[in-house]
C-alpha cells in the first residue's frame, strides 16, 4: 500500500456517546470513504477530559494529537485542515498527553483508560495487562494478601476500609465456597469513575477480581452493575466472554490449576444496593434491604459464605499493585491515605472529568487548576464532596488536602472522590431538603430512624423554607439528625444528616430567609 493507514481514536464511553461520539465516528468514516483515504477507527474509552468530548485523537509519529470537542459537522473541516497529519485547527489541542489537565495527573488505576481498545485482549497485554495476575499466579495466597495490605490500598467506594485486612479475613475463613463480589452500583451523583473504567478498561477489573479470587481461594465472582449503566453492562459482558475465550477466566486460568468464574448481574434502580449487605441480598434475588453487621460479609456474605465485597476502583487498583509492587503504589499519597484517587469533577464545572492524583491534592487545586471554575462563570459557592451523603463545603475549606483523616476532622469525607460544584445561585436550604427527600425515596425501610426520619426531615425542611417557627424547627432538625446518625443501621440513614448539617453549619443564612424576603429578591 502506498499511502500509510491512518489510525483515529473516537471514544465509545457513554459520556462521549451522550454528546454525539457515534455520529462523529460515522462522519469520519463517511468523509474518509468520500476522499478515498484508508482509515482505521478505534473506539477507545475516554481520557477523562469530558468537556472535550467527543475527543478525537489521531496517531502521528510524535504521538496522539487531540481534537475536541468534535461534532459530526466539524469533520469535513478537520479533513480539509489535514488533521490526519496532526495539523493545526481551531479544535486542536496538540499532543493529548501534553494537555496540562492530563499531564499533571498521576495515572495508576486509569493508566490504560482512553488509550487502548477496551475490548482487545491483545491491546491490554501490550499495555501491561495481566502482568499483575501472572505474578500473582506464582505467589502464595498469603503473599498476595500481604502485598495488597502493604500497598496501603483502602476501599475506594467511600468507606476507606483497608482492602488487605478485608482480604485477610476472607483468606482465613474456612468454607467450602467463597465469593468475590464487585460493587459496581455507582449510584452517587457526581461519580462516574467506575463506569468509565468498566467501559474503558474492563479487563483491568477482570484481572483485579481474579487476583482477589486466587488470594482468598474463591472460585466464583459477580459484578453487580446498576441498570442505569447499559453501556458498562454490555462492555463488561463482552470482555468476560473474551477473557473466557483466551483462558483468563474459567477452569484452568492461563494453564494453571486455578479456577474462577465471573458473571455480571444488573441492579434495578435501587440506590441502597450500593450498600454492601443490601447488594448481597439483591444478588441473592431478594429485596435489597440492609443486613445487620456482624456477621461481616467477609465471614457470612453471599449465600452465607465468606465474601470479598470491593468497589470497582479498589479492584482495578490491584493489578498495578501486583505488577509494580506494594512500594510503588504506597509511594504516592500522604499519611494513612496511600496511592491515588480518581477525583471526579462534576456539576457546574468548566473542565469536568476524571483527575487521578495522589492523596494530598487540595480541593482548590482540583476546582481551579484542573476544573477552571464554574461553567456558568459565576463564583463557586459550595461543593458537595463524596456523594449525596457527603458534606457541603464552603470556599473557606478549599485548601484542605484530600486525605481521609484531614476530611474526617472537619466532619466531611473524601469518599470515592466525587465532587459536585455549585455556583452562587444555589439555595442550600433546598439542597438540605433534597438530601432528606433522597433518603426518603431510597431508604430500604428496614430501620425506623432512616425510614421515618427522612420523611420527617422533608417536613421539617419544608417548614423552615416556608419561614414557620424557623429557630424551633432548626432545633428539631438537629435532634432528628442526631437520631438518624446514632440510630440508623447503615450509612444511608446514618450519613444523610451530613449534607443537611453541613449546609446548616456553613450556609446558615439560607435557612433563615423568610418567604417574603425570598419573593422580594
Amino acid at each position, binding site marked *: 500500500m502506498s499511502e500509510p493507514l491512518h489510525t483515529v481514536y473516537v471514544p465509545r464511553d*457513554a*459520556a462521549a*456517546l*451522550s*454528546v454525539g461520539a457515534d455520529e462523529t465516528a460515522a462522519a469520519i468514516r463517511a468523509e474518509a470513504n468520500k476522499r478515498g483515504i484508508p482509515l482505521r477507527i478505534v473506539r477507545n474509552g475516554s481520557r477523562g477530559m*469530558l*468537556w472535550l*468530548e467527543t475527543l478525537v485523537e489521531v496517531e502521528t509519529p510524535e504521538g496522539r494529537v487531540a481534537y475536541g470537542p468534535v461534532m459530526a459537522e466539524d469533520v469535513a473541516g478537520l479533513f480539509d485542515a489535514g488533521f490526519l497529519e496532526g495539523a493545526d485547527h481551531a479544535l486542536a489541542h496538540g499532543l493529548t498527553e501534553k494537555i496540562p489537565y492530563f499531564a499533571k495527573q498521576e495515572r495508576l488505576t486509569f493508566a490504560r483508560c482512553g488509550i487502548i481498545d477496551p475490548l482487545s485482549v491483545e491491546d491490554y497485554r501490550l499495555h501491561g495487562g495481566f502482568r499483575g495476575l501472572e505474578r500473582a499466579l506464582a505467589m502464595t495466597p498469603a503473599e498476595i494478601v500481604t502485598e495488597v495490605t502493604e500497598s496501603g490500598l483502602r476501599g475506594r467506594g467511600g468507606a476507606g476500609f483497608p482492602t488487605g485486612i478485608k482480604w485477610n479475613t476472607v483468606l482465613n475463613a474456612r468454607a467450602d465456597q467463597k465469593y468475590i463480589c464487585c460493587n459496581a452500583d*455507582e*449510584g*452517587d*451523583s*457526581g*461519580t*462516574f469513575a467506575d*463506569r468509565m473504567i468498566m467501559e474503558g478498561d474492563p479487563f483491568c477489573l477482570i484481572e483485579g477480581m481474579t487476583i482477589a479470587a486466587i488470594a482468598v481461594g474463591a472460585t466464583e465472582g459477580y459484578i453487580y452493575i446498576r*441498570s*442505569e*449503566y*447499559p*453501556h458498562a453492562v454490555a462492555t463488561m459482558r463482552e470482555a468476560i466472554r473474551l477473557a473466557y475465550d483466551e483462558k483468563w477466566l474459567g477452569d484452568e486460568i492461563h494453564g494453571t490449576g486455578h479456577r474462577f468464574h465471573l458473571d455480571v*448481574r*444488573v*441492579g*434495578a*434502580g*435501587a*440506590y441502597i444496593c450500593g450498600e454492601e449487605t443490601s447488594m448481597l441480598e*439483591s*444478588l*441473592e*434475588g*431478594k*429485596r*435489597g*434491604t440492609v443486613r445487620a453487621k456482624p456477621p461481616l460479609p467477609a465471614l457470612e456474605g453471599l*449465600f452465607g459464605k465468606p465474601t470479598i465485597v470491593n468497589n470497582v476502583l479498589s479492584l482495578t487498583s490491584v493489578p498495578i499493585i501486583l505488577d509494580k509492587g506494594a512500594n510503588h503504589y504506597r509511594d504516592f499519597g500522604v499519611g494513612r491515605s496511600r496511592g491515588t484517587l480518581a477525583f*471526579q*469533577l*462534576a*456539576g*457546574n*464545572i468548566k473542565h*469536568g*472529568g476524571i483527575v487521578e492524583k495522589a492523596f494530598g491534592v487540595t480541593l482548590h487545586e482540583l476546582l481551579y487548576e484542573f476544573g477552571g471554575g464554574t*461553567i456558568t462563570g459565576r463564583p463557586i459557592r459550595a461543593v*458537595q464532596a463524596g456523594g*449525596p451523603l457527603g458534606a457541603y463545603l464552603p470556599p473557606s475549606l478549599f485548601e484542605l488536602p484530600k486525605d481521609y483523616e484531614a476530611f474526617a476532622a472537619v466532619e466531611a469525607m473524601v469518599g470515592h472522590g*466525587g465532587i*459536585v*460544584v*455549585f*455556583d452562587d445561585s*444555589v439555595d442550600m436550604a433546598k*439542597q438540605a431538603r*433534597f438530601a432528606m427527600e*433522597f433518603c426518603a*425515596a*431510597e431508604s*430500604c425501610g428496614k430501620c425506623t430512624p432512616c425510614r421515618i426520619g427522612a420523611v420527617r426531615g422533608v417536613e421539617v425542611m419544608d417548614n423552615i423554607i416556608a419561614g414557620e417557627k424557623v429557630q424551633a424547627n432548626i432545633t428539631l432538625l438537629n435532634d432528628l439528625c442526631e437520631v438518624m446518625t446514632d440510630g440508623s443501621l447503615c450509612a444511608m440513614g446514618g450519613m444523610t444528616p451530613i449534607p443537611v448539617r453541613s449546609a446548616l453549619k456553613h450556609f446558615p443564612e439560607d435557612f433563615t430567609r423568610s418567604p417574603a424576603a425570598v419573593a422580594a429578591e
Partner: protein
Amino acid sequence: MNARSPWSEDRATAVIAANRHLRGALLPMLHALQEEFGCIDEEAIPLLARELNLSRADVHGVVSFYHEFRRSRPGRHTIKVCRAEACQSMNADGLIEHIRRRLKVDFHETTADDAFSLEPVFCLGNCALAPAVMVDETLHGRVSPARFDAITASTLATEAAR
C-alpha cells in the same frame, strides 16, 4: 424502543426457564420478563413464585422494592431525567419543568399519544456533562430545553422512518 408484547403465559414460562440455571435468579428473571413485555405483568407473579418456591407475597415484595420494575406497560419510549445533585447544579429543575410542560405529563406518566413515559432517575453517571437524560438506552448530556425538543423529535422521526 420499549418491548411491549402482549402477555403470553407460554412466552413467560420460556423466559423464566431460560434463567433457571442462575443462582439468585429472581432479578435476572424479572429483567428478562420486563424486556419481553415492557413490565412485570400481574400474571407473572404466580409463575415466578412456583418456579422459585417462594410465596406470591415474596415475589411481589421484590418487584415493588425496585424502582426499575414497572407494573404497567410503558409508552413506546422511556425518558429518564436525572434529578440528582450534579444535574441540579446545572438547572435540571428548569429542564424538568420544560419537559413536564412540553410532554404534558408528570413523572411516572405516559403521554397521551403513548410515545413517551417519563421517569425520574437519581444519576446516570454523566455528571460532568449535566444535565443528563436517557431515552431508552441512549444517553444524552448537556441537555438544554431546545436540545430536549430536538432529541424527542428525532426519536419520533426515527420511529416513523422504520
